[in-house]
């Protein structure tokens, strides 16, 4: 018996572009290759099946271990050039730096207004950049920032002792519990992973609160607006609007028959009359008359706003619209979200409809709103994209048949596997 989905099982190994190298322990001997742009890390298959007690094998293993040991023993040294130092502030569990240099600070840290600055509104406030716990930790780990413990009268050079990487973890994650418990290991894993890939990451307003009420950007634009640009568009709008609503056709259903005699050839009309069951229409949602605080569950809230690497529009003062919104979920402590939890989360993200003239399956996959869930277990992150799909809006019977090859695009139904998750 041949299963229909048998082709899903890889026969000859996955395609090269599907391999995620970070998925398996890689041989540290190839670390040097990564800094050298033209060299490539070999795609898997370089490992052995089992130990067979040969000298070759144990030598290779020893070499790998030694390479790993050397790589891990790297010392974080600060050259005088570009040397940046910051001071830990225990009360707020943040750190501050005066006029830090370097391109990284164009996308990190904040100068706080006088009333919010934990050190008060003194004359240095404008030069003082406050770094959030995850930002300090990331920079310390990266070897970019030299963080000092608060200075103490007896320190010889009125500067505190340097904070080690271990100290930074202990304070910025370990001690978060005694502050507001907002930065967890899960959140930091996602933050640092994305930063290492080059994304710009900022805390979302719903970081540790339900966040502000969803504004008009979270709902489809009101239909009047579509009238504006003129006749051509009206015709277009007219068509899409009435295709969605059976409208006056409903009257004809008052008789016993769904399809009246006489209507034989027009399949589209027949199908339209058979469409009796209501469906969820993501475009039919409206902004509630009074603003409500989102009813999101604390386990499922947008945690970070993400901008793509090299985004030209991003500025710290005016970050603009993020490219992605990510909700970090603890894989060990959380079960699959309920419809209510997911719906409440979906209410807080902006309306982002698919292209009007896109292909049917692509439109369904894209959805009318979307959010990315980052599921974390022991430092391992899987990204899932959840879309608010409008299946009912896409009428199969209105689809133009494109002859041969038209079937192609539909190969992967079921909403597809959204974002390229890391777990397979």
């Amino acid at each position: 018996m041949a299963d229909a989905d048998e082709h899903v099982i890889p026969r000859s190994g996955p395609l090269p572009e599907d391999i995620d190298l970070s998925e398996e322990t890689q041989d540290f001997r190839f670390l040097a290759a990564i800094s050298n742009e033209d060299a490539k890390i070999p795609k898997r298959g370089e490992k052995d099946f089992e130990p067979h007690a040969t000298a070759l094998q144990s030598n290779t293993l020893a070499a790998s271990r030694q390479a790993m040991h050397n790589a891990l023993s790297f010392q974080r040294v600060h050259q005088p050039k570009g040397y940046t130092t910051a001071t830990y502030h225990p009360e707020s569990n943040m750190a501050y730096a005066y006029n830090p240099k370097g391109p990284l600070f164009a996308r990190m840290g904040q100068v706080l207004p006088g009333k919010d600055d934990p050190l008060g509104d003194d004359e240095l406030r404008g030069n003082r950049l406050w770094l959030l716990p995850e930002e300090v930790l990331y920079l310390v780990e990266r070897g970019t920032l030299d963080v000092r413990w608060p200075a103490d009268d007896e320190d010889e050079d009125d500067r505190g002792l340097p904070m080690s990487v271990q100290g930074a973890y202990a304070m910025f994650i370990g001690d978060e519990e005694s502050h507001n418990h907002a930065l967890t290991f899960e959140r930091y894993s996602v933050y640092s992973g994305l930063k290492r890939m080059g994304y710009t990451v900022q805390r979302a307003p719903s970081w540790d609160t339900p966040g502000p009420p969803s504004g008009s950007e979270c709902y489809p634009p009101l239909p009047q607006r579509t009238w504006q640009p003129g006749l051509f568009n009206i015709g277009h709008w007219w068509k899409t609007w009435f295709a969605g609503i059976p409208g006056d056709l409903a009257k004809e259903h008052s008789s016993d028959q769904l399809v009246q005699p006489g209507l034989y050839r027009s399949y589209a009309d027949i199908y339209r009359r058979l469409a009796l069951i209501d469906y969820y229409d993501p475009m039919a949602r409206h902004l509630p008359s009074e603003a409500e605080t989102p009813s999101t569950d604390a386990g499922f809230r947008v945690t970070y706003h993400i901008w793509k690497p090299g985004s030209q529009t991003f500025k710290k003062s005016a970050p603009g619209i993020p490219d992605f919104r990510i909700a970090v979920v603890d894989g060990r402590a959380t079960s699959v979200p309920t419809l209510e939890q997911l719906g409440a989360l979906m209410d807080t993200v902006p309306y982002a409809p698919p292209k009007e003239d896109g292909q049917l399956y692509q439109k369904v996959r894209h959805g009318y709103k979307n959010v990315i869930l980052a599921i974390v277990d022991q430092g391992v992150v899987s990204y899932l994209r959840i879309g608010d799909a409008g299946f009912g809006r896409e009428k199969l019977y209105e689809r133009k048949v494109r002859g041969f090859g038209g079937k192609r695009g539909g190969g992967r139904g079921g909403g597809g596997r959204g974002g390229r998750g890391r777990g397979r």
Partner: protein
Amino acid sequence: MAIPDTAAVPEPFPIFKLAHRFLLYDTTTITYIRAKYNIAGVLIGGLPQAPQQNVFLGVPLELMPEEARLLCEKGVAYVVDDAKAHKQGFMGRGLGDEERRAFQASLRKQGLAAAGQAEKKTEDRKKAALKKKVESDDWNDIPEDMLRPTSRASNKRKGKGAKSKEEEETPVETNGESDGKVTADRSQQDDEDLLFAPATNGVPLNPTLSRAASNTSIAGGGPEPFAVTPTTSYPPLAATPPPSTFSSTELPDVPPSYPLYKHMHAKDYFLAPGLRFGCQYMAYPGDPLRFHSHFLCNGMDWDQEFDLLDLVGGGRLGTGVKKGFLIGGEVKGGSGDQDVGATSAGEGGGGNVRTFCIEWGGM
């Protein structure tokens, strides 16, 4: 044999606990438990020498609770509340003056060594770059810094200009890499420094440039020590093992699948968390650096009922990725079934665990 001469770590060694996680920061300990106790853990930190990638990660090493528990049960490790230790040590004047001074002196020594190395390296590199410049005969490309002494003010003013220079400098750098020497250099430096690297000259820097450097400078010339961010806080902090390592209240909490973990570990398997394959553990026949995993493991209670569909799903997944799907649990009551080799050889701690391997027939 080329077994790396892993320096022995004095036992028991501390495992640092914070926010309910178990971490290790000391490279020697990480290498040591890998070689001696078959415990690999998961590296979760970034590598400063290659900061823009996720394939190779660095310290800290996160241990599964099972791994921490096993090490504690063997009596070779103990758990330290790291946040508390740091607060006491660095903020509550827990460190004595003597310790602080020793710590600062050792950092200064390390910084001095690093500065000396860096100076030598930039010398070499400058020579190489100059040679190239002479060959290409394009004197406009020479960084301004090379010709005039650096000062803080000029640095600042140049901010923008220097940045555009970065792009021009890069090709020179990549050329330099072809002789293999620079690869190592690169690992020594932060990448943003690297962009300026050919410009750094060996002349002692203006004392106003870095307050730390000037304050800690020592008489007698030579390079100024660089500031160093140590990886661990031990020293200056010192961890003392609890008086009785076996007090069971101190042992880390573990999930119910712990007996299976312990059993597989006693059979010399390396076990890693299994999220990526949707199981509890992945079992490797040797160090995951060298070997592919053989089994996807799930622990069960002996009398636990579970869906047949779990068997089918696990079996299919395991077969699909060329691994065995393995379930196992501890035999409740009685000590029979010795013949299946379920009892672990050493330690006598594995209990009566039996394991079963399921393969999808796919007929």
